[in-house]
């Protein structure tokens, strides 16, 4: 599966990642935006407030709040009256939203939120890793991870399409690596209003808060019915698997760009070693693969775009013929010493006929640079696993022993 890009240079602008996302939000015509600024998400909401001040987003309210908890709470009410809602956050701000994240998904409100991925405290650190969003994986939000600015920008429109689908009705996070994507300038095509209007229909909820026809949202569920709510949320996640694929192909039809659906592949056809990853590290991995392929190393990449729902079948289809798989994570489950992508890929293979060794390597925590040499080291270790079996299942690939 190849990445198809519309490289029409006449249409391209060089803008900051945050601006590209803010522009995408604008052309998706939100009715309510509420967000609290926090590094490295700040530029997104600054750009949106500028758009608001300039009157560029009609029929929209920007609600000023004193915290991320309030930002998302304000959107719960707004989404319940039928508004298309947007927020953006990161790190501690996202963790502060934890309680409301469950409310949004339980109430089946299709809010879209950009996460400018950042490490969590303590120690305080503003740089990029993916611990913040991964820590919210069980809140019932769809989680999509972008590789570059164009994808982060395009994914925003796709996220609304998926979230607001009648068979899904779940909130969605568009995760983009903080600074690496949010603050970098790259040439890209800003979403055109007329094409977005063609791609994304207006949000049309079935039930809304309405004083003329009173309803209760977020009501009490006793032990007799609570389980069924969770069952229905999981069913919606299952439905989202196909809708994510569909949103990506529909996007290609209208805009001419495609990045894969649930996953994407790079040089996997004859690959013995397959690296799996999410987010901006994909670019570095692709460059490393190009160099290693020139030397005859049969290595490929599985890019995971959707972490929730977890695309088990799509992943299996790619890795089933590999000789070794390495899951690369920018997060850790403390107490297990594994990254989430590794744990879940490994677990998904249990009770299947696919017999491929999987190892996990954690890198890039707290914004540590990920040079090509680190990826090469990981590929070397994978080659050793092919020859002699797994020696270390999961570990930090860039640990500085001299600091310990």
């Amino acid at each position, binding site marked *: 599966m190849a990445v198809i890009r519309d490289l029409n240079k006449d249409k391209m602008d060089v803008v900051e990642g945050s601006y590209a996302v803010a522009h995408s939000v604008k052309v998706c015509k939100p009715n309510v935006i509420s967000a609290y600024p926090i590094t490295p998400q700040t530029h997104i909401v600054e750009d949106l407030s500028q758009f608001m001040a300039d009157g560029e987003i009609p029929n929209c309210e920007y609600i000023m709040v004193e915290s991320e908890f309030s930002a998302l709470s304000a959107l719960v009410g707004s989404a319940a009256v039928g508004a298309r809602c947007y927020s953006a956050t990161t790190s501690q701000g996202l963790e502060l939203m934890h309680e409301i994240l469950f409310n949004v998904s*339980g*109430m*089946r*409100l299709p809010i879209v939120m950009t996460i400018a991925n950042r490490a969590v405290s303590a120690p305080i650190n503003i740089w990029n890793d993916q611990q913040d969003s991964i820590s919210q994986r069980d809140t019932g939000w769809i989680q999509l991870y972008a590789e570059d600015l164009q994808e982060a920008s395009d994914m925003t429109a796709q996220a609304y399409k998926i979230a607001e689908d009648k068979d899904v*009705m779940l909130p969605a996070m568009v995760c983009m690596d903080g600074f690496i994507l949010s603050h970098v300038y790259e040439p890209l095509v800003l979403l055109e209003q007329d094409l977005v209007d063609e791609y994304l229909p207006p949000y049309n909820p*079935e*039930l809304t808060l309405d004083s003329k026809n*009173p*309803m*209760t*949202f*977020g*009501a*009490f*569920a*006793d032990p007799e*019915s609570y389980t*069924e*709510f969770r069952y*229905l949320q999981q069913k919606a996640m299952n439905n989202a698997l196909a809708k994510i694929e569909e949103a990506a192909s529909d996007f290609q039809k209208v805009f001419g760009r495609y990045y894969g659906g649930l996953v994407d592949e790079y040089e996997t056809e004859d690959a013995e070693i397959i690296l799996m990853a999410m987010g901006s590290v994909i670019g570095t991995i692709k460059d490393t693969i190009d160099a290693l392929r020139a030397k005859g190393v049969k290595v490929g990449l599985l890019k995971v775009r959707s972490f929730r729902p977890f695309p088990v079948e799509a992943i299996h289809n790619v890795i089933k013929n590999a000789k070794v798989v390495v899951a690369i994570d920018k997060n850790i489950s403390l107490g297990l010493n594994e990254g989430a992508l590794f744990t879940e890929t490994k677990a998904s293979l249990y009770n299947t006929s696919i017999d491929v060794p999987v190892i996990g390597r954690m890198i890039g925590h707290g914004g540590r640079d990920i040079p090509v040499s680190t990826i090469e080291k990981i590929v070397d270790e994978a080659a050793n696993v092919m020859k002699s079996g797994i020696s270390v299942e999961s570990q930090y690939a860039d640990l500085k022993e001299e600091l310990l």
Partner: protein
Amino acid sequence: MSIRLGGVCEPGSTRVNKTGGWRTFRPVYDYDKCIKCKLCELLCPDMSVLEWEDGYFQFDYDFCKGCGICANECPKDAISMVLEEK
């Protein structure tokens, strides 16, 4: 009953969610001590104290969770908390 998307329901649905089953202690009036001051009705967090025609009060045991605020605040100790039995 089938669940609507997101559990949206008509107002008044909490009437069927009877919360009295959680109770360990039930409040009981001693009407000889009650001076009809209404504090129990005002302070009940679950609207489970109902006023009757004679000005006295009764508990709605379908919804009283047995928190004991009424007994604690009654100025005349007219309410006692009695252990629920099966």
